[in-house]
């Protein structure tokens, strides 16, 4: 008994703790409910919840890094952080530069929003605001409307309220949140289906990390925890399809 105790103690003392791999996770932190800075100054949102859950399952030690949307892909490629979870849709253009994990949110319709009483014609002939380098900016550019681009999502909403743009196009969940936040100044207009759903961006050379994340993703899809998080953040059963 005593011997067993001593050997157990020795094992505890000399065992080298298995160090979890450190992964730095890049996010924009300006796009609620996907990712934002909460009142305590911490990053929060759907992306962060999913990311943290994946990290705990894959036994990775994750820290979040805030980075502007505009430079979020270049800084991933340059190795400043290892993943992008920033409400980023999987597109063919992005896939040429970086790799994506399996999706963690199904394709979500994008919504136009404008001031109340705006004529629907502006969506194809007026001035429409969108964030730079987003699928929405690409869509507006092709739609016949004049595209005005902004570096942050916040500025696209302000542009409509200030009259600089006739309408704004962004992901549906973000637009709905902004309509509520601006107290009815904005109303939602048409919705359009663009993008291939959200995926985690990783460097093309980082196949090991991608495999780990995919394995963890498959697990939370199977046991329903991803669906729970989708319902928690989007309050929408139709998106919880996994």
């Amino acid at each position, binding site marked *: 008994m005593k011997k067993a105790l001593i050997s157990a103690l020795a094992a505890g003392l000399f065992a080298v703790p298995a160090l979890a791999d450190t*992964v730095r996770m890049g996010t924009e932190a300006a796009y609620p409910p996907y990712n934002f800075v909460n*009142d305590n*100054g911490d990053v929060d949102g759907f992306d962060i919840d999913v990311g943290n859950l994946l990290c705990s399952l894959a036994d990775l030690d994750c820290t979040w890094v805030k980075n502007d949307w505009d430079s979020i892909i270049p800084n991933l*490629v340059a190795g400043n952080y290892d993943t992008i979870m920033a409400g980023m849709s999987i597109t063919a253009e992005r896939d040429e530069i970086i790799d994506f994990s399996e999706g963690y949110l199904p394709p979500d319709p994008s919504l136009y929003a404008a001031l109340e009483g705006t004529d629907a014609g502006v969506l194809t002939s007026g001035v429409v605001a969108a964030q730079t380098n987003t699928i929405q900016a690409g869509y507006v550019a092709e739609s016949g409307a004049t595209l005005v681009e902004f570096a942050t999502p916040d500025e696209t909403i302000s542009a409509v309220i200030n009259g600089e743009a006739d309408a704004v196009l962004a992901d549906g969940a973000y637009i709905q949140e902004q309509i509520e936040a601006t107290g009815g100044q904005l109303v939602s207009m048409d919705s359009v289906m663009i993008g291939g759903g959200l995926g985690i961006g990783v460097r*093309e*050379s980082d196949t090991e990390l991608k495999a780990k994340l995919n394995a963890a993703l498959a697990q939370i899809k199977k046991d329903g925890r991803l669906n729970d998080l989708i319902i928690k953040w989007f309050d929408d059963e139709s998106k919880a399809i996994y």
Partner: protein
Amino acid sequence: MRGFLFCMFESCADPSSLTGLAWFACYLTNGKHLLFYQSFGTVLGLLALAAPLALLFGFAGALAKRSQIPGLRQIGQVYVAMVRGIPDVVFFLFVPLLIDQGIEVVRHYSLCESTGPIYQGNDFVVCDAAKMPLSSAEPWVHSLYGFALALAAYAIVFGAFAANTLDGALSAVPTAQLETARAYGMNARQSFVRIQLPQMWIYALPGLANLWQILIKATPLLFLLGIEDIVYWARELGGTKGSRFAYPHPDWRIYYFAALLVFYMIMTWGSEKVFNRLQVRMSVGQATLSGKGAAL
């Protein structure tokens, strides 16, 4: 007062029940605002470190430019001409990237066991041990490293301007004084240290004061380098906040930017006062218009 503050913070647990002043007291002391207040320290810290560093770079640049040694003189000239001729923003983006990737490349070849190619397609890949700072380092280490890179960029850019100012000031010292020093038997080094150097400051001061004001006004460029400075937090805090947040409010960016405006006005106004007094003090006894004015 402390008791009062304590009560105030206790009651912040449920912001939705608050109104008026209590709401603002809680709002302005939430975690996010504390980070905003801290970021003023980042800006002041940058100013406190960048100014002497830039002066050092400037001094080295000016001496190099005036050097009799051919190679050194060209280096000084190229440094000053290059930085002055290229837009600041380009330098601010280029210098930190160059230093960061330069360090990582060197570490990659010296620390990694198997050195695979660094450029793999679009990717810049160094082994884990070569990362600077290491991925496993605490977040504050990453922040400090980013800050140091920014500091280097400021020192290099502002150093070049300071070099030109100091070079001009060294040339402005009357030749008669240097000839007198020579006549008294001082060698070149002695006359430089004893006569030329102490006297050049008064000529350099207006130019350096200008540079300092420009440096203050250039601190928002930190934001461009991904450092969470006062501009980042002002924009983040001012943006419209919906009911997801404990303190919902409409677009308040104008108030936050107004606060920054006041901060920068106070900084530049205060600096102006200090430089004016310095100018008066340093002019005493100088054979210049302001010097004689002060002496009379």
